[in-house]
């Protein structure tokens, strides 16, 4: 096949075939774009030859999803590359953002970058024989995975997986010389629930049930992305009112997540009064969710082809100002507390170069000066009325201020959507095969979903990529950026990620 020079069509997804030998050159050309995701498997209607080959398992299709974040011409590009010999060019050497996915693909399909460098353990637990999406790794992962050895005058401080009360299970290997943080790595494989494996063979409607439990704290974004993918695959468009319903739910989700992040920041800095204030706002926002949509965490709002529940607009108009008032007052009081602000300033700095290189998304990227916000993609309910809040410092304080600005923006948007009219109701999906990419902006950043439907309308391959899967990668760099032990919880709170989303 011949290589077409990939171009971004604003507001659309364009797919290109790239031959395996050309892949490296194409990746170099696309360096201007953000590598949003990379995954393998999934025969699609787009390339019948590939589908045939993949179906009898001699060949895996490698898909790279590129995003253009510049306002106005935001859009996505997908490159499809058939991989025959179980190896593909070492992309992470050119685009570091590809690394985590390289490891995942190796664990799931047994194909690995040609560089032969060791890979990290992402999802497969050691000494576990779990079903995988494709062929099992040719050699035992133990040989392929990088060893964690600590030499010289440092030692590894083991933290987790069972950590302090009320947080997710997560393991930090904190390599320290007794005083400074030398290195840090984390394991999330003990939360791997095999969601992408479970989704195979489901109808998109059933798939939503698991998708919203992939990362419960961004259930709306995840389900929206999956539903949008299914709609793109079958070529239907939901009604505008239903789209706005989804958007209202997404913005409410962003609001309560930012409130929760604020509470976590206060807890990590030991400011319990601020934590209480933030938690009051959080609880009021959650009750507002329950009253408006019937679920505190907005489960079951998004449905394929539309929305299954309509918001109680009056309830939102009635409660939102008060709830957001709590949020705003708590935030202002926090920004007026010097001990708190000083703790956040110049902590956990991520430069724009780091964020771009690692393909980070959401407030973390925006706080570093990048405008990565899928709400800017033309089409969809948002239109042109969103302004992405950004900062330049890239530290925890910048992330916090970005969150506050986004919260204000969300309130404004919710008002607009309610005025424009929201409604439940779904458009029936035709039973056709096809592939599609869907996205939504969760509070953590871009949530992506790619879906391949068989001719019976059931899923043959679904790829879920919550924002956490991306941003955890930036976390250890942020922790390594300075040498203070006690900053790590603060940085974790400012990222506000979930291990569930990372492990799926």
């Amino acid at each position, binding site marked *: 096949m011949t290589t077409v020079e990939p171009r971004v069509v604003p507001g659309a997804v364009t797919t290109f075939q790239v031959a395996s030998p050309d892949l490296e050159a194409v990746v170099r050309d696309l360096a201007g774009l953000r590598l949003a995701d990379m995954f393998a498997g999934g025969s699609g209607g787009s390339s019948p030859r590939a589908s045939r080959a993949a179906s009898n398992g001699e060949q895996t299709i490698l898909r790279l999803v590129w995003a253009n974040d510049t306002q106005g011409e935001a859009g996505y590009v997908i490159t499809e590359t058939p991989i025959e010999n179980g190896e593909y060019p070492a992309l992470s050497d050119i685009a570091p953002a590809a690394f985590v996915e390289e490891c995942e693909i190796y664990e799931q399909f047994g194909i690995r970058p040609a560089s032969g460098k060791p890979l990290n353990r992402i999802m497969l637990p050691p000494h576990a024989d779990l079903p995988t999406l494709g062929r099992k790794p040719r050699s035992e992962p133990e040989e392929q995975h990088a060893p964690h050895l600590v*030499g010289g005058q440092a030692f*590894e401080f083991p933290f987790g*997986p069972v950590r302090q009360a009320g947080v997710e299970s997560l393991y930090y290997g904190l390599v*320290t010389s*007794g005083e400074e943080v*030398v290195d840090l790595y984390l394991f999330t494989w003990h939360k791997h629930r095999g969601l992408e494996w479970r989704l195979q063979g489901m109808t998109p409607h059933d798939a939503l049930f698991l998708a919203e439990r992939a990362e419960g704290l961004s259930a709306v974004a995840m389900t929206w992305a999956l539903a949008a993918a299914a709609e793109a695959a079958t070529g239907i468009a939901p009604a505008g009112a239903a789209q706005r319903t989804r958007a209202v739910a997404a913005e409410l989700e962003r609001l309560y997540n930012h409130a929760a992040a604020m509470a976590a920041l206060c807890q990590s800095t030991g400011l319990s009064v601020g934590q209480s204030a933030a938690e009051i706002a959080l609880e009021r926002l959650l009750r507002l969710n329950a009253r408006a949509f019937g679920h505190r965490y907005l489960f079951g709002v998004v449905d394929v082809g539309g929305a299954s529940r309509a918001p109680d607009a009056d309830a939102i108009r009635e409660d939102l100002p008060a709830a957001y008032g709590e949020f705003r007052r708590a935030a202002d009081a926090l920004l007026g507390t010097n001990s708190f602000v000083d703790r956040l300033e110049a902590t956990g700095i991520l430069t724009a170069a780091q964020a771009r*290189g690692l393909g980070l998304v959401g407030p973390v990227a925006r706080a570093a000066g990048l405008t990565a916000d899928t709400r800017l993609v033309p089409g969809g309910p948002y239109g042109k009325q969103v302004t992405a809040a950004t900062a330049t410092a890239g530290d925890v304080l910048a992330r916090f201020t970005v969150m506050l600005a986004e919260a204000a923006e969300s309130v404004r948007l919710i008002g607009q959507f309610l005025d424009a009219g929201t409604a439940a109701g779904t458009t029936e999906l035709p039973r056709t095969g096809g592939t599609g990419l869907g996205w939504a902006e969760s509070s953590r950043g871009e949530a992506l979903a790619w879906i391949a439907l068989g001719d019976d309308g059931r899923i043959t391959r679904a790829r879920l990529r919550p924002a956490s899967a991306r941003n955890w990668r930036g976390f250890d760099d942020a922790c390594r950026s300075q040498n203070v032990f006690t900053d790590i919880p603060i940085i974790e709170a400012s990222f506000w990620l979930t291990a569930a989303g990372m492990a799926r």
Partner: protein
Amino acid sequence: MTPLDFLYAAAAAWITAALVGVLAARTAGGLLACCAVSALGGVAAAAGGGWSLVYGDTPVVSPGGATVVGGPLQLQATSLAGVFTALLGVVAVAIAWYAPRYHTPSGGTALYVAAYNVALLGCLAVLTAGGMVTFLVAWETMSLACYLLILRHPRAFPVARGAFWFLALSEAGFLLVVAAFVILSAKTGYTTLAGISAHSELVPGGWRAAAYLLALTGFGFKAGLVPLHVWLPEAHPVAPADGSAFLSGVVVKMGVYGIALFAFRLAPPAGAWPGLVTMGGGAVTAAIGILYAMAERDIKKFLAYSTIENTGIIVTAFGAAMIFHASGQRALWAFLLIAGIYHVANHGCYKTLLFLEAGVTEHATGTRDMDRLGGLVHRLPRSAVIAFVGTLGIAALPPLNGFVSEWLIFQGLFQGFRTGSHLTGILIVLAAGILGLTGGLAVYAFVRGFGIPYLGMPRTRQAAAASDDGQPAGGPALLAVACVALAVGAPVVLYALGKAARTVTGVTLGPLLLPGNLTVIPAHTDFAAFSPTYLAVFLTCALAVPLLIYLAGRPRAGSASVPVWDGGIVSFKPRMQYSAMTFSAPTRVTFNALYRPSISVSRPSDDDPAGRSGPVHYEAQVTPAFQRYLYRPLVRCLEWLADLVRPMQSGDVNLYLLYVFAVILLAYLLGAV
């Protein structure tokens, strides 16, 4: 019958041992025989030394009118040397018990044990020298023999370098010592030590001070006073375990003996300031020694630096004693002399023990790097127990012997207010403060020095494979017993030392030291008192208390025992435990100005932005300040001078003849004048 006769026996035994060694130690049997004879000599020396404490000084004799390099061979067993001689004997026995299992019989070993026994002989001769020529010859013999025994494996460069450091510094010291002796004998007209000390009043004050300072520096090179200490951390790691044990346990003490000789016996300098200089030097030595010890991973280097620290403590005591003498506090003068010498004996025992155990560890695991050891208490239980006794001793924890002598030293220093002068009083208490810091750091350092290698999990496969069988245990065990004896039997020791002190200083402490019923008093009844014996007994009983509490409070119902809570990780890995350097990281940060560490980190994420995980390596290298900023410039300057005189060495025979002629001519002219 005098102590000297025992010492003759010891000398004879060691000469025989040296001969047997050089001839027969190629075979296991020969090595065993050599060590047996050497041990006999040790017993004799110990007996002679111990007896000479209470016997007093013997007259100076020159057996058979023998001569050494033109001077008569003059011998004398003195009370001052008694403790050193006894220590020499005990160490000799312990090492002789240890060596046959440690060394593999071979030609190299044969030469080594020969050199070692000659070194023993040299030390004995230094301690029993009655005249200055004898002393100096013995001193050189000892130094050269030690140089040879450090060179056990001369192929390796570090060995050659360590040995060279030793030889260079000890020769430099030797010249100063010669000068000091020449001054004294020239001013008094006597060559026997007894004669010099009897007529020391003939030496004018300035010359006394000069002689003392020369001696302090000269012997300081051997004793390892900062900044003359650099040979210890270089030479100790490269010598065989028993060799470095001998260096630390005895040879370093020879330097201390020399200082004591000039400070208390021959011609004690007048005035307080020589004492202040000595005390200050000692205190600085102690602090810097232990601080560098904290930064060492190599067990033997660590022990070498701790030796420097202990020398510092002893010399501090001597200095304070001199100050008290100058201010007329004769009781405290004698008391601190006793305390210092007591510490000599203690340190000789437990430091030798620890070096021997370091040798066992190195044999069993093939490494001396603490961060490659761990968990040895399960694999080397015997040496773990023995090393634990030694560690308690050197960390100066009750009820072991280190505590007793350091308690005495502190009690002496705390009475600095009795000097009358406020300045000296304050300075003495200041020195006590520095010693306090040193003591605290020493506990910290030896918690690390024992905990990292012996406790926890093995950090390497070699450490996991270590095994106890075939490892020598007898010698260290003997020393452990000696440590306990020196603690529990403190009153007896102090009685003997009191007698020795009377011989040296003429002060009778008697009840001021031992009022009876096993109690010790620091020279003044109104100050403090304690009984090492009762303390030891009490603490041993106190150990039972937790046991009783447990037995009383243990649950009547069935109780479950579960593993320690580890956060639910699959399994602990050795990389997850404290390493030697992380343990001392707080000190490293606090005293950053002294250490000036050069930190190097290598982690995969540095050269690979993708965040590939992999081996992480972190190094913080401490700068050896004295080598770099003091000795290296010195060496460079010497090289520069050598370049200056090189043109003289043209290699032309006629030119050399001209030199000879010029010299002869000069001599004649001088003669004519």
